[in-house]
Structures are given as C-alpha cells and as structure tokens.
C-alpha cells in the first residue's frame, strides 16, 4: 500500500456522516436491533424479565453508553448527533492506537 492518506480522509468523512445511523432510525421510528433490547422492552415483549438476564444485564458500567457523551443525550437530535460524532472520533482513536501498538509488536520487520 503506497498511500493511505485518502483512506484516512475517507474514514473521517464516514465519522462525520455517522449520525445518519442515529437520525434515520429515529425518523422511521425503528426500535433497537433484534436481540439488543432493554430489560423493559423484554418485559413488554414476553411478559417477564428472565432472572439470569436481569442479574447480568448491568454488569459493566460503560463510560459512554450508546455512543453518547454525558450531558449530550436526551437534548434533541443535534446534541446527540454531536455526541455520536465525538464518540466516533474517540472510538476510532482508541481502536487505531491499540491496532498500531499491536501491529508494532506483531508485524515483522520489513527488509530495506
């Protein structure tokens, strides 16, 4: 691969577009993905909350749930879109950082 510059720009462009993944489902009133329901949604669907599921559901307090920043959620689509973009940038930075580090350890030295 000679030049990855355009691909990095493409990635940034995708992050800026990512709120579409938030806005479109809102516009057509779609719910969560199949099999990714909240406890309340499960109770509504099957009439009870499975006990084991309830115990494990809140095991992990993710710092940025639903790709949103604290104080940016529930204030309308503009705020949540901004939070989504910032979450996207943050996530991409962490993923790229971890991958570069891992790649340094795993990749073999190139011959000159």
């Amino acid at each position, binding site marked *: *691969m000679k030049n*990855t510059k*355009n691909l990095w720009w493409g*990635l940034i462009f*995708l*992050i800026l*577009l*990512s709120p*579409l*993944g*938030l806005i*479109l*489902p809102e*516009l*057509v*009133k*779609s*719910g*969560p*993905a*199949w*099999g*990714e329901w909240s406890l309340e949604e*499960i109770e509504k669907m*099957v009439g*009870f909350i*499975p*006990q*084991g*599921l*309830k115990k*494990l*559901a*809140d*095991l*992990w307090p*993710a710092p*940025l*749930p*639903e*790709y949103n920043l604290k104080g940016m959620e529930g204030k309308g689509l503009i705020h949540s879109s901004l939070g989504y973009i910032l*979450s*996207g940038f*943050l*996530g*991409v930075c*962490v*993923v*790229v950082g*971890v*991958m*570069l580090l*891992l*790649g*340094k350890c*795993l*990749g*073999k*030295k*190139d011959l000159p």
Partner: protein
Amino acid sequence: MHIPDGYLGPQTYGVLYGVMVPLWAIASRIVRRTLHQRQVPFLALGAAFSFVVMMFNIPIPGGSTGHAVGGVLVAILVGPWAALIAVSIALVIQALLFGDGGITAIAANCFNIALVMPMSGYWMYRLISSGATPTSRRRWIAAAIGGYIGLNLAALTTAVMFGLQPLLSKGPDGRPLYFPYPLEVAVPAMAFQHLLLFGVIEAAVTGLLVIYFQRTEPSILEPAGG
C-alpha cells in the same frame, strides 16, 4: 448483532471464551509470520473502518435496526486472520467504552462477527474470484457475494446462540433464565432481516470498496497480499 450482557448463560459465553482464546493466539502467530510493518497502518484503518461502519444503524421502518460490519472487506485486504484480530479489537472497544455488546459476550460476539464472518466471506471471495485478475469484474462480484454470505452466516450463528438459551437454562419456575425466545423464533427473525436488507448493504459496501481499490491500488487485491 452485538449480544448484550445477560442474553447468554455462563455455559454458552464461557465455552465461547474457551474457543476464542486459542483462536486469538493462532491468529497472532499467523499475523506475526505474515504481516509486514508497512501493512500495519492498513490493519489499523481496517479495524477503525469496521468500528465506524457498525455505527451506521440501518432502520427497518417501524421495526428493528441493523448494520453492516465491513469484516469481509478487511479480510480481503489484509487476510482473514489479521481481520479476526482487527475486528475483535473494534468489538472489544465497542463493549468496553460504549456498552455495545456485553463484556461477558465479547468472545461470543468475536466468534460471530470477527471469526465466522471474515473467514466465510473471505473463502467465498477466494473461491469465486480464483484465477481472476485483480481488476476484473469477477473480483468485486466475488467480494459482494462474500460480504453477503459472511454477514448472513454471522447473523445465523448469533441467532443459534440466542435460540439455544431456553433449551440450556430454565429457572425453577420453568421460565428461561437468559434469552427467552427459542431457535424457531430467533433464527427466522435474524435470517429474514439480514437476507433481505442488512446483507444487501454489506454486499454493496464490500463490492463498492473493492471497485475503489481496483481503480486506485489494484496490487492490494493480488492473492499474495492475502
């Protein structure tokens, strides 16, 4: 397709950690042998691309949502074992930072999305495109079909994990302890959405990006690059 915490019982997610840990180790060994330093930024791009693609929730009006993964594209560009590592990293960050997918289910989600999808899609691509030159039409068609097959198989293994739960664990009252719907509900529901919509999006994303690479950097599509 990101299984949350609590949807799978310990005997399921435990077994999947048991399956994935050796596979991650094998992938690291293979990547250590085959990956060149100059390919590393590309691998990072692949992981980041997959991370972002999964943020594009595609709605079924009035129904549920789903998304593409980009896992087969990453496998076509860097090989399926490197893709296993790249997509796994994206999934781990999604679970830890954003609560997308449970932490007990990290191995299960990596099995479906980072293993089943890139491996099956990549080999489908190799099969259909064998002997085709990097810039030929058969290449991007093979990639699109690979993306479609890969995402659908991942949806299927996810649905099977879900649907097994009521069989594996019941409370004293006879009710399911974890995911409540049986196989005959989970499999058709997941298959239907992915066969008709999300798989088609995955095919388009994979095919279009392979066309992009055919025009800008066809050497990356050489079989040796796999």
